[in-house]
């Protein structure tokens, strides 16, 4: 398959590196932005609800919340990168057009965007993880596995997000994705409360959504436990990401190489 060949050929690395170099220029601001928002949620809800809900599933509420917050932060990081920043590079700045005039194929460019957006998830996820550790919310060594998990969550959501980028006429279009797809997942998939307390039909919906599966791995790891059926959950994330990437690539070909 052409994507596998492109991955091995490694031309995508130069494109990935371009995005990394731009990020490095503004890294401090970017990381601060990635940390501050989830930190407010964590402290606001965590401390606020702690008086009413001392424990959830046998752990302190703020520790319960932290595992979910890390997962949804990585979801948002990849989504912003794949949608807003990706659209800027493809359409507004015409960066892709310049790259495609060089001996680089569209597969290389889209692959680089996908992996870069997942890299942003990894950076954000690691940053918020370090903050959670600094706040004393967790200290299990299983937390190390949250770093590769953040990358996987990034691949999943960036793959789907790139479909929106391939279809977008302007930035406004992305509001639908955030309000209709990502925000519901933040509320339904167990970031703030366990989904086991929800009505059966809501649980059924939630268990089909990727963030649920991300949290099913991330929360236990944060709390020092081994997640149940980790491979199954990881498989769902891979499936969403790969399907999204494949559809996105088809749409990008139609949009840019017609």
């Amino acid at each position, binding site marked *: 398959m052409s994507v596998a060949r492109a991955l091995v050929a490694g*031309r995508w690395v*130069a*494109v990935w*590196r*371009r995005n990394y*170099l*731009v990020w490095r*220029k503004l890294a401090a601001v970017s990381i601060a932005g990635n940390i501050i928002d989830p930190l407010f949620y964590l402290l606001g809800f965590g401390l606020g609800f702690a008086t009413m809900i001392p424990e959830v599933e046998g752990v302190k509420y703020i520790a319960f919340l932290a595992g979910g917050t890390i997962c949804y932060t990585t979801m948002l990081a990849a989504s912003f990168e794949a949608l807003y920043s990706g659209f800027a590079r493809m359409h507004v*700045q*015409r*960066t892709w*057009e*310049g*790259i*495609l*005039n*060089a*001996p*680089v*194929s569209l597969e290389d460019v889209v692959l680089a965007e996908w992996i870069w957006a997942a890299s942003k998830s990894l950076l954000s996820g690691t940053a918020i993880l370090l903050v959670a550790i600094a706040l004393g919310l967790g200290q299990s060594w299983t937390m190390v596995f949250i770093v590769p998990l953040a990358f996987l969550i990034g691949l999943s959501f960036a793959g789907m997000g790139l479909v929106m980028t391939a279809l977008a006429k302007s930035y406004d279009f992305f509001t639908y994705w955030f309000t209709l797809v990502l925000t519901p997942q933040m509320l339904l998939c167990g970031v703030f409360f366990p989904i086991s307390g929800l009505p059966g039909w809501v649980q059924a919906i939630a268990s089909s959504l990727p963030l649920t599966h991300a949290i099913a791995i991330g929360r236990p790891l944060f709390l020092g436990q081994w997640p149940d059926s980790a491979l199954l959950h990881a498989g769902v994330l891979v499936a969403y990401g790969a399907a999204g990437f494949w559809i996105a690539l088809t749409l990008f070909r139609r949009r*840019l*190489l*017609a």
Partner: protein
Amino acid sequence: MAGVLEAKGVRKSYGGREVVAGIDLALAKGECYGLLGPNGAGKTTTLRMLLGLTAPDAGTISLLGHPVPQAAREGRIRVGVVPQMDNLDPDFTVSENLLVYGRYFGMPEAEIRARLPKLLEFAALETRGASPIQSLSGGMKRRLVLARALVNDPDLIFLDEPTTGLDPQARHLMWERLRLLLRQGKTILLTTHFMDEAERLCDRLAIIDHGRMLAEGTPRALIAEHIEPEVVEVYGEGVEEWFGAQAKQLATRAELHGETAFCYTKDAAPAVASLKDHASLRFLHRRANLEDLFLKLTGREMRE
């Protein structure tokens, strides 16, 4: 080895409308070849197909010996492209733009860095290496795009309307740089709708409209073939009356467009003599040029 760039019978339709309807061209090493046509003539689509960014519906293309689009990527390794609209990376400085672009060609960092001073000098941006892109003038940006297209030391350079939007000083500097590249033995394919630009730079050119090649050859030969050697342009109070009464007798071919009469002839002396008696009329007596040819072949009506 095949020619630098060859295209035979290239066609492309979008939604049933044929945008490129049979383009044939062959560029020899070291020549500057121009594609001239009004807006929407199919110039940019042709360039995209030659570069392998759009697959033609019919026809064959060979880019530096590589079949396109099948092996277009391999062909582009030795090609530089100056697109119609600047797409410099706004997040990088001048030097970073060149450095990052060189990596897309798989060039080692040391090799790109070694080329940087020469590229900056070529772009007349020696002192601006660390400047942000936003601080550059339009002409500087255009020259930087040209320098970026040279980062891989290409054999063939595509230029899509290289001087559109530039002031006269910036255009002349751009032309000087392009001639320098031709002296170095580079081959250039450019699109333009500036006739003076084509006349100055192009060894050969093709006039295209509605996706078809209407004429091809050296600028002087094309003008000699299609247009009478001398032109008198007449304008001013009463030009319509003069045109109706006299123009047809005084010139081989005469046309009235808006407020100007164009008289094409082998010998302009009778027309000029007649105009001496009409104090209200002003006129310009000149040699036929590429613009006359262009307007004859593509018509004078406005294009979108």
